[in-house]
């Protein structure tokens, strides 16, 4: 059994043709004999290090003489494997796994698409599972931190009259009574933020922020209460935390699948992940709308307040802030009104 390749002298680019031969039984059995084109005679050698073949590349053997012997990619080098030092065997095994025919390509494609579909379906349950693992104290601390950072960067102290704030706090108390006991400690924060406009939001923990602009814009206590109930819905369902954990799952999955590739492909796959996430975020909004309508009814208040608020917002910006695209985090007002009135 002979293997002809090119021998590079140690630490140089100098090249000679050489042959590696498995010694015959008469010559002492399982040893390798090297014969070089530029030298008379031959020497027994061992293989010190192997750089295994990877798809179409050559096999690179570092011999005990220090020289490097390269054997062409399409040479059958399997009989040499018993002379390899131990760690190189895993590489040979992988190479066999990777060397696929067209049927293998098809099988791998199907497996890949299945894995992709599996990941797509796993985002929500995996994210929600992670969200349950996080202790409440950590969530509360993170929530407080987010509010502290918003206060430093965007939000100012509320400028609502004390009397309005007291009245709204009283209304909020009634919502707290409806909430499950674990969420009865939910806090309401009044803030002023001209840059944001009429809005309210729920933080990952038990915190709800109400902006002055919403109170003045709505000019309707039922509407403000309906919005607060909507945000309370987010808190009770832990939407913010679950959304964060779901996007973490997407980020990890994207990093794992294409993290070793060029960044542009990572961006594209990340974009696909965002499409899924924003779809789920829109579902969360509808869920919170539903909670709001339910609680308003139980309080005996105007269940039509939220739809009324949406049409007012819709009119205000003449359809331009309607949203509801594939990448939007909120459904369009039209869809939300429709879902609420059904």
């Amino acid at each position: 059994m002979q293997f002809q390749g090119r021998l590079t002298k140690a630490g140089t680019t100098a090249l000679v043709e050489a042959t590696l031969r498995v010694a015959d039984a008469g010559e002492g059995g399982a040893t390798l004999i090297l014969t070089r084109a530029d030298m008379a005679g031959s020497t027994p050698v061992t293989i010190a290090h192997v750089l295994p073949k990877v798809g179409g590349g050559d096999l690179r053997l570092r011999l005990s003489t220090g020289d490097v012997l390269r054997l062409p990619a399409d040479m059958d080098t399997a009989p040499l494997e018993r002379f390899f030092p131990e760690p190189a065997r895993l590489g040979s095994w992988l190479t066999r796994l990777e060397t696929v025919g067209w049927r293998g390509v098809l099988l791998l494609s199907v497996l890949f698409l299945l894995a992709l579909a599996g990941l797509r379906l796993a985002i929500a349950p995996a994210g929600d599972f992670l969200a349950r693992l996080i202790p409440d104290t950590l969530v509360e601390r993170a929530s407080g931190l987010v509010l502290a950072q918003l206060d430093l960067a965007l939000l100012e102290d509320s400028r609502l009259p004390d009397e309005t704030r007291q009245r709204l706090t009283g209304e909020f108390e009634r919502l707290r009574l409806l909430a499950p006991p674990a969420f009865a400690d939910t806090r309401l924060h009044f803030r002023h933020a001209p840059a944001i406009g009429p809005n309210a939001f729920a933080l990952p923990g038990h915190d709800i922020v109400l902006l002055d602009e919403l109170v003045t814009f709505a000019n309707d206590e039922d509407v403000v209460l309906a919005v607060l109930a909507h945000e309370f819905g987010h808190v009770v369902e832990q939407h913010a935390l679950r959304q964060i954990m779901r996007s973490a799952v997407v980020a990890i999955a994207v990093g794992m699948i294409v993290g070793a590739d060029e960044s542009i492909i990572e961006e594209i796959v990340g974009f696909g992940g965002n499409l899924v996430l924003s779809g789920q975020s829109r579902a969360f909004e509808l869920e919170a709308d539903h909670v709001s309508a339910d609680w308003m009814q139980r309080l005996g208040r105007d269940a039509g307040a939220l739809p009324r608020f949406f049409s007012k917002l819709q009119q205000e910006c003449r359809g331009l802030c309607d949203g509801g695209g594939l990448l939007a985090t909120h459904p369009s007002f039209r869809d939300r009104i429709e879902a609420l009135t059904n």
Partner: protein
Amino acid sequence: MQFAGSGRTETRAIHQRESNGRDQGKAWKRVSEKLQNPFVTLPSGAGGTDGKTPRHGSASSRKDRPVNRFTALEFSGTAREFFGIQFVNILLILLTVGIWTPWARVRKRRFFHNNTRILGDGFDYLATGLDLFKGWSVVTLILIGFYALPVLGVPFLQEGFSLALVAVYPWAINRSMRFNARNLAWRDVRFDFSGSYFGSAWYLFLLPLIGLLSLGILLPLASRGMREYVARNYRFGTARFSGKGQLAHYYGAGLRALLLSVLLIGLVAGLTILAVFAIDGSLVADPPTIDGLAYILGDGIGAAIIYLVPVLLFLIFLLVGGYYRALTRNIMVNALRLQGGVRFRSRVSGPGLAWIAVSNLVLCVVTLGLLVPWAQVRQYRYLTRNTEIRPVADMQGFLDRQIQAGSSIGDAVGEAGGLEISF
């Protein structure tokens, strides 16, 4: 082409001179060698093969190998081979919850380097998965810590930490390029990279940033600085690379890229205006109003335009980027020299590379990523086949410097940041 012609005659002359001397002095030795050395009687082609012709030149074809004239690099990998490697990688990464990542990177790099051949010999990537794993695990732990920072409850701690990471980046990219260069060998001589912290910070981060902030006016200057910084700090064994291109050439490339983008953006703008006209001509005559915009949005075509225009602009960005990269690469590679007289030439076509970048992207998206390995091989093969080297004296005289490769932590930081700088 002229180079190639004159080079060949030169080579023939050298061969003749050499063989004359040999004929007279060493005739007796050749005879005695024939008697002692069994190698001489070996059949040509490979001893251990099943009779198929080898992928690259065998012993007999080596004699005709072109020396002292430009020849294109070969790439012997196929998309199918890379497909197998990449999808086995992905499946193993998923099965091992990410731990396989460093080994996956090694196999990918080995595939591309190993199949890139000069004079028939591929490059060898010597780092092992375990080498990369050490750096990767440190960086992964730091990243996990980074995402857990909000738990400490200090406002803007994460942001501050990000800023600190920016300062670490030039160091990391240096270490990364050094690690990868020292683990890359051709025959038995390894490359090396000797950039400094401030050199990398200036040429790879600050200068490109200044180029962007100057609205592109200084971008060709930055491109030249970046490419030549990488080139002059690279080494092959004890031999240094150098490369000094003319600034005017880089500005020429910038100007052509600018013209191309103006042309393409103008085209998109023109089509958009036409489409708006098709919806309602009266809207264009008056200055646009909120009501007008709302009206256009309400229309199906209008809404389609709103979504389509950013996609088109992104594709134009990609197209012009590929075009500019191709032109500056040519300038840099054509100016590149390796000590000892080795020269290089790049014949990448701007429209060619731009087309590959855009069509690859579209095909990858449409096939849900199935064609990603194929697309990467396609682009890489195009680049190698259009890169030429003019070897000197069969490239026999280079020497390795016998240095340690160091740790892989910089490489892991660079990968985590999605940075890839090569030349």
